[in-house]
């Protein structure tokens, strides 16, 4: 492996009920890059995310974060290796306030029982609480601090989920269809926001997305999956011109996948999770 | 002596078994732990006593007690399962617990909290075989429960309603898609549960000749244990579980004293829950509710 890669998947296999969902998959994500994971319906993109975040364990193969082999590490501790993620269908805690959801995002940085018993959300001025509020304010969500998230519009919930994931100060952020359900203006805003986040070079993005304009504008590298296998890898433009990729999408028009059917696949995948 | 204790254990066990069958049917089909069942058991026993006390002849009193209990069970259905479908999983459980309290305290309000004595059902009817005493009520109870469970198995295996019930048990949404009239079929579950439990209460009243408003609690709790020992959702498993609990109880009383019974029975229950939550016989998988 090269020392510039932050994530490396090595010959990963995953089988669900006799179906090879992920078949001998290997790829690397470069440190500080914005990489897209794309592919048609049922290609196994969300499964890859679930394998990286530890929801499932692979049947064989290894996953490395930086130098560390995290293949056998439990899901709950992977965030401490710098991996945070969002979910395809937003999974905020409906009975926590926006601020509490964001504070929850800091959980992996907490050390020990004393930290856990610090009343972070009682008095104003607490370091953690102020950090969470600043995070919300940066994302333009300051007005929603005390709202219960279940009552907020979908687009706002997506943005809160992103803030929550960032609170873990991850090295690698997995975004599962961050632009799904957003309108054109919101999508562009998101893309600019993500771009800014990566400017310091400390954060690496791995993005599952089917909006190719979004991918083209945001990402500098892409990995294409089809039926659990990697069929192409390169810059978004190069990948789009690849004959194998075009064949996979053949008959489905140039813009790869219909958003609706893709969404359905993801829902089912997350239900399985 | 041991033979006699086995007979007594089986008698008691058949009461527990019928309560366990009612519970297991509700869990197996509806995924609903119906805590009102101990209350229905009490209603069966106390209504029988009340009707006999009012001078109504035996056969009518039995039928009347069954009808009252089934009506109560349908009321439970109306306010737990039917109204609350889609609510958080604990809500029907909570409502059914409230029904237990409701039934018990209505009974106290009407009949007082004293122990009542049920008149003897069959005079001079004991069989003596090789030194063992078998009461006719005991025998009747056993035959009744075997017949009822056989009937229930047939209902589940071979009738339209049974097929519908099994479909609901698998997946209520699919059942709806297939055009199953869920409300009608689910009321069958509650009718059967009411019938089994009340009959258990009646048999208990006839065998032990005592009823009181809290009589359902101890029996209901042991019915729950029997259900789990046999494997939740497994009807024949519940019968075996009931017999195990019944004989364990009788033996524990004679060797260690009455105070030791609960320790033995609930210790057994806890051990099974921890070591083998699916029960001795394969019931359903330990499912997570709500998620």
């Amino acid at each position: 492996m090269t020392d510039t890669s932050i994530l490396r998947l090595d010959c990963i296999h995953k089988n669900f009920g006799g179906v090879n969902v992920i078949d001998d998959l290997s790829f690397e994500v470069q440190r500080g890059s914005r990489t897209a994971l794309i592919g048609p319906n049922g290609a196994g993109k969300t499964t890859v995310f679930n394998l990286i975040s530890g929801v499932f364990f692979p049947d064989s193969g290894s996953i490395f974060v930086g130098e560390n082999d995290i293949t056998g590490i439990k899901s709950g501790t992977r965030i401490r290796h710098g991996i945070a993620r969002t979910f395809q269908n937003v999974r905020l805690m409906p009975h926590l306030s926006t601020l509490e959801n964001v504070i929850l995002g800091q959980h992996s940085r907490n050390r020990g029982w004393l930290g856990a018993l610090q009343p972070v959300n009682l008095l104003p001025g607490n370091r953690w609480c102020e950090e969470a509020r600043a995070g919300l304010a940066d994302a333009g969500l300051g007005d929603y601090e005390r709202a219960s998230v279940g009552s907020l519009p979908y687009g706002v919930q997506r943005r809160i989920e992103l803030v929550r994931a960032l609170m873990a100060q991850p090295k690698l952020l997995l975004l599962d269809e961050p632009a799904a359900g957003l309108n054109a203006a919101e999508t562009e805003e998101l893309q600019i926001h993500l771009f800014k986040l990566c400017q310091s070079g400390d954060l690496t993005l791995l993005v599952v997305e089917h909006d190719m304009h979004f991918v083209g504008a945001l990402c500098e590298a892409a990995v294409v999956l089809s039926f659990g296998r990697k069929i192409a890898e390169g810059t978004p433009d190069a990948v789009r011109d690849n004959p194998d990729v075009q064949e996979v999408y053949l008959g489905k028009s140039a813009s790869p996948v219909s958003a609706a059917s893709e969404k359905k696949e993801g829902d089912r995948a997350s239900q399985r999770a | 002596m041991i033979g006699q204790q086995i007979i007594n254990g089986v008698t008691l066990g058949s009461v527990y078994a019928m309560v366990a069958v009612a519970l297991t049917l509700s869990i197996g089909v509806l995924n609903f732990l119906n805590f009102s069942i101990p209350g229905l058991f009490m209603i069966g026993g106390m209504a029988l006593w009340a009707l006999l006390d009012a001078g109504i002849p035996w056969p009518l009193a039995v039928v009347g007690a069954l009808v009252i209990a089934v009506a109560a069970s349908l009321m439970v259905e109306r306010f737990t399962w039917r109204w609350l479908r889609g609510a958080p999983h604990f809500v029907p459980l909570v409502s059914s617990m409230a029904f237990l309290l409701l039934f018990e305290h209505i009974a106290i309000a009407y009949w007082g909290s004293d122990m009542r004595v049920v008149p003897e059902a069959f005079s001079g009817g004991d069989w003596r075989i090789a030194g063992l005493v078998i009461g006719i009520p005991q025998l009747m109870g056993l035959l009744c429960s075997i017949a009822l469970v056989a009937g229930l198995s047939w209902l589940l295996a071979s009738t339209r309603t049974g097929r519908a019930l099994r479909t609901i048990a698998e997946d209520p949404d699919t059942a709806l898609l297939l055009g199953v009239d869920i409300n009608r079929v689910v009321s069958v579950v509650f009718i059967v549960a009411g019938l089994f439990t009340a009959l258990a209460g009646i048999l208990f009243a006839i065998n032990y000749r005592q009823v009181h408003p809290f009589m359902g609690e101890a029996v209901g709790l042991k019915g729950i244990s029997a259900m789990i020992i046999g494997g939740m959702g497994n009807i024949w498993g519940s019968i075996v579980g009931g017999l195990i609990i019944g004989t364990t109880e009788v033996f524990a009383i004679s060797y260690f004293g009455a105070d030791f019974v609960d320790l033995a029975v609930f210790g057994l229950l806890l051990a099974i829950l921890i070591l083998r939550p699916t029960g001795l016989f394969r019931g359903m998988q330990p499912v997570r509710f709500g998620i």
Partner: protein
Amino acid sequence: MSGYFEGVLVLLAINVVFAYGAYLPLAAGQLNLGIAGFAAVGAYGSAYLSDTFAIHPILAIPIGAMFAGLIALLVAVPVLRTRGIYLALATFAVGQIVRAAILNLEFLGGAAGYPVSAFVGLPVVLGFALAVIVVVMVLFATRFGIALRAVQDDERVADLMGVEVRGFQMAAFILGAAVAGIGGGLYAHHFSYIEAQYFNIGLSISIVLYVLLGGTQTAWGPLIGATVFTLLPELLRGSASLRYVVFAAGVIVLMALRPQGLLTRATIQRLFDWRNPPIPGVPMASGRGQ
């Protein structure tokens, strides 16, 4: 203050303490149906200490609560391996076993009950209840409290956030048992007599009902639930059983009309948060679903 009023207040305070004992595990999505058993450990433990070693009740009650927590710690590892309905039944079995064990322990009086000579009055009872309320409220503003509620909402995501799900659930279960133990200790020392039969499944059910009726979404729910459903029956002049009938019927109607409990986040937001009025056109979350 009239004796009657004082009696109601004591009952209310003890019920509130019990309710928080059941609420702590429920906030993490665990139904503890053995809460009366832990209350019994606290009651008998503290009573034995104050009786045999002449320890002052104010000290004996917390020590008794620690006994309850210790018992919870012993059973937590095997019992919390079970889930959902199995967990409810396992905790129920634990409660029954505790009660049955007390019946068999001669030095605790067995079936005859246990007279307690030391006495605590209304101020002490209220003081303990207030302390429990404050501690739980503060606890729910900590990372621990936030994580607990997150576990109830979505265990999988909480785990991915790095929440130690099992550890936190165990802590909530043990802490809840200890709080119930405080309630038991208060009961024993105020009423000067305890018997195993009092700590039956009916008590566990009533306590759980207070919490679910109040609502599990906020830490105020148990307080509201226990208060309403302790005082409401008192308003009725009539026999004890009539009060229970009203209580039970109230539970059934409330669950049918408002399964999320009396008090939800959305209610609180609507009542108190004038700075963030509900967004027009967006319906408030109904709070259905756990």
